[in-house]
């Protein structure tokens, strides 16, 4: 099996195909801290692409409550369990090697789904969820852990009449009892598990934008993609007997939506986001296969410069192109298992953001057009305080976003502007 370079793992890894890269790569950053799980994204996606017969169980976009929720049920626990069986106790990140441009999170010394797959004679390790497991898309919404209970047995006196005061609370930096929302679409991976798995070569990655698609004419519905995508984002449709997956609303990426006059536009799930947690763009790929240096690209800045956004389950080895600002209250061990060893740095950066990061974060959902470059106009200092013992200064800077043609499409300031109308417009409630 050929070897390819996975920068998220800081090393080469096995993959069934030679390393090849698109010119641009579809990528996104979701800020978990802002999500309220309203599911407007899910409904936007469902009502655009997934309302037909045979698609009843399909949600290309879903938002699940972690740690118990998952669509299909417990997919991430199950993948972790499958790898664990092949490589018990061996999922190790080595951060002693230090952070380098080619290995920003250190080196992963454990097994990817491809490494583990090789052990069992498959392109990648995986499983096909049963029909029962595709039910209950929003299972365990808003359900928290009770970590203390796991350790000590559930404290029955917690709210009982006898001893109501034996309660302890949670506070930052880590909430012992926690949940958070995880927003998921296809990650349009650099090394897709689905593409590796397909015996018909019906799955391809578009050279122009890295979007991963299933050729509906070539697919014969063997479900190998369903089995070997660890994120479980290809889904089988019984009525057509072929599989389908998120298409990253590619007509919009191509600028075909009349609203933007030919300029690339963000997908339905991104543009509909009420909580302003989502931002999406295209990353230019360099000759070495990594993202080309692009200092004034908002996502490049967030992911590669500040490293405030991290890939989802990078240890699975598909080099996903979806990134997350991790939940600031999550126990760090759980978050590292999900986003890798960069979690501590990312949360620290987010909790006490730099002046530039705070400005750039205002760009989330400031435009329907895809932003390719930003600029910051400095403003005055308006606030300062201590956050967890660290000094934080807030400047009312203005951030500008530019589309692919370099035209300004967003202009937002850090502080919400205030307007007062003349006295005759009085409300006086």
């Amino acid at each position, binding site marked *: 099996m050929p070897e390819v370079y996975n920068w998220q793992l800081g090393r080469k890894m096995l993959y069934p195909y030679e390393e090849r890269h698109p010119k641009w790569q579809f990528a996104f950053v979701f800020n978990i801290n802002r999500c309220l*799980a309203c599911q407007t994204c899910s409904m936007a996606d469902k009502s655009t692409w997934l309302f037909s017969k045979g698609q009843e169980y399909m949600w290309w976009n879903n938002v699940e409550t972690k740690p118990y929720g998952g669509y299909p049920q417990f997919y991430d626990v199950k993948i972790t369990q499958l790898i664990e069986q092949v490589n018990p106790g061996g999922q190790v*990140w080595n951060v002693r090697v230090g952070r380098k441009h080619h290995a920003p999170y250190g080196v992963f010394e454990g097994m990817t789904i491809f490494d583990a797959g090789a052990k069992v004679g498959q392109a990648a390790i995986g499983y096909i969820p049963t029909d029962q497991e595709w039910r209950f*898309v929003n299972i365990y*919404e808003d*359900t928290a*852990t009770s970590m203390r209970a796991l350790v000590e047995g559930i404290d029955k006196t917690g*709210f009982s009449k006898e001893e109501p005061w034996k309660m302890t609370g949670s*506070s930052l930096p880590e909430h012992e009892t926690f949940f958070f929302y995880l927003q998921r679409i296809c990650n349009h991976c650099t090394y897709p598990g689905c593409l590796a798995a397909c015996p018909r070569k019906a799955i391809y990655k578009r050279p122009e934008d890295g979007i991963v698609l299933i050729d509906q004419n070539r697919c014969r519905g063997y479900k190998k993609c369903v089995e070997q995508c660890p994120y479980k984002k290809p889904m089988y449709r019984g009525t057509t007997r072929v599989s389908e997956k998120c298409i990253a609303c590619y007509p919009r990426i191509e600028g075909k939506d009349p609203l933007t006059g030919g300029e690339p536009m963000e997908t339905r799930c991104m543009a509909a986001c009420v909580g302003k947690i989502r931002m999406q763009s295209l990353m230019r790929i360099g000759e070495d296969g990594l993202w080309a240096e692009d200092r004034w690209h908002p996502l490049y800045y967030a992911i590669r410069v500040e490293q405030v956004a991290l890939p989802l389950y990078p240890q699975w080895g598909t080099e996903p192109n979806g990134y997350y600002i991790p939940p600031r209250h999550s126990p760090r061990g759980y978050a590292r298992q999900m986003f890798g060893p960069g979690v501590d740095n990312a949360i620290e950066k987010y909790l006490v953001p730099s002046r530039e990061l705070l400005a750039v974060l205002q760009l989330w959902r400031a435009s329907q057009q895809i932003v390719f470059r930003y600029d910051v106009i400095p403003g005055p200092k308006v606030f300062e305080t201590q956050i967890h013992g660290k000094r934080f200064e807030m400047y009312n800077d203005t951030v500008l976003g530019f589309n692919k043609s370099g035209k300004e499409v967003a202009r937002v300031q850090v502080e919400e502007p*205030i307007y007062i*109308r003349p006295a005759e417009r009085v409300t006086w409630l």
Partner: protein
Amino acid sequence: MPVWQMYLVHFQDYDLDTVHQICRTPKDLIVRWARDSGTIKPAAIHNGEGVTHYFHMTPNGRAAAMVLIITGNVGKFGTGQHTWAGNYKAGTWTATPWSGAGLSVHTGEDPFNITLDPNAHGKEIKTRSYYYGEEVGYWNHGDTALIVNTPKYGRKVFTGKTHMPTPSKLRWVVNVNVLNNAKHHYDMVRNVDPNIECLITQDIEMTSDVNHNDIAFACNSWMEFTYPEMTVTVSNPWVQIWKGGIRPLYDTRNDLDTFAGVAAKLSDMTGDKRMRDYFAMVYANRVDVYAQRMLDASSTFYGYSADVMLKSEKGWMVMVRTYPRHPFWEETNESKPMWTRTGRYENYRIEPEAIEYGENFISHREGPEATPYLPNAIFTTNPYCRPDDYGIPITAQHHDDKTVRNIKLSWHEIMRHSNPLWEKGYQFYCVTPKTRHRVHSQWSVNDWVQIYESNFGDPYRMDKRTPGVGEHQIHINPQAAKDRGINDGDYVYVDGNPVDRPYRGWKPSDPYYKVARLMIRAKYNPSYPYHVTMAKHAPYVSTAKSVKGHETRPDGRAIAIDTGYQSNFRYGAQQSFTRNWLMPMHQTDSLPGKHAVAWKFKWGYQVDHHAINTVPKECLIRITKAEDGGIGARGPWEPVRTGFTPGQENEFMIKWLKGGHIKIKV
């Protein structure tokens, strides 16, 4: 003695240990919150709307406001106490001396002096209201006011004269599904509505209100309005002027057409054309004239042209006084006084009712039903708090007795008394917050909403017991459930106080009791303390016909056999275990406040502002197992067999929750 000196006396009861015992908040977090409130500038309290739905919302709201008042966090941007109510919008169309009568030019036009000139300015409209507001909460209280026979004074009326309801002869509601959302729902259906001569509703969906009414008008949704509309919420800085949307999908009419149609018919029958004249612009399809009059007559909008805005290609949003919208901005930053007796913020209530009810000071009160201790007790030993118990014994259990009985005690004394209901095994609080997946109670049975709404959404309905493509659930602490033999996903019965729930006069042998008794899926959720459960607000209730539907249809769906009404339950509803409570402090005749739509004082009843404008969630419930959760009631619900679910984690899952399947070599 000055108020703050008295409060220093009052606060002596509220030491850290006692407050911790009352609210169960960890002490270090109470201290931290107090410190943060005093040092972080600006600071705001966003308490959500649900908190205001409890019996003691008044002391709660006053307490939060007091913290902000004494820390200087009122009326400045970034400060204030906020809920997310969607009503209280009328004040945006405020009457002023220079603009005119505000909203009243439409809602209060003098019916004996109607302006028919479409070009008349809003200021020219003659207003004179012949209607008065009355709260639906009294209908929900057996259609009676709050009147108690007290040992000390005999018959005592606690409902103020300005609040006094009349017996309900006719109920006509618009787009509110009021019966579905009423506390004590099955009592309303069984014991109250049969005495009302005519029930009319207009709605955009097949709701339970529609199913129980004499007349239902099918109306256009917002998307389908063919008339212009304006709206705003009290927390939103923008008024939206809306010119109408898509063509109606079905044979439906605008809400306004129903009133206009009835008025026209009444004119035909009586020969008096004034009823028709009152809606003249509706028949002429010139509703924009009414919009223009309201714009003309209110301070926010005078000078704006409805015609320009409605004909414009752009959508229009008109800004109110400030952006962001901020309550009390004018009182804090300009010379406007508060609408109080002193013109200032008031933390002490001098109204005679407040003194009598022991609420001149802000104290903690236990709930009238949802407490393990003495119901409705006032926690204070402050000598300046002097409530009247009307001689009602401490053992009295009637809901109205508990509602009005004012007893002040030390916290130790309050805890010493047991609530008999608790002793009988009703040991769960049940909170009913709104869900994020619906709009209030709308779209409860839309397929995708049902699927997302709970742990049990399944478009293929593998378990044929599921009433629709999803169903309602009650969140419960895993250990509390296990102690009662209830597994995650099981069906359970939920019972409220048997004295009057699900409805007054129920008998186990009554066929309607089976319809009304709640059966619901249990969902393990360690987020909830042992004695707290949660079921979301306003799913579509079971009706006799929806029960007959799932008991007789081959597919088992809970669909009413005639209308096609879909229920979210097999049996009962979350209103099976609730009842109405009429808070005395909401019914005074002496409390001053701003008139809803004008710059003038109003004492006592004020629609939405000082009234029984909410029916509290105030109940204890008992939970018992009904059926196994597995498909066809065979064994446990499938997901719990994995070992990955809350409260039943296997060794691998416990390690996974702790992040133990990744190691970091540092």
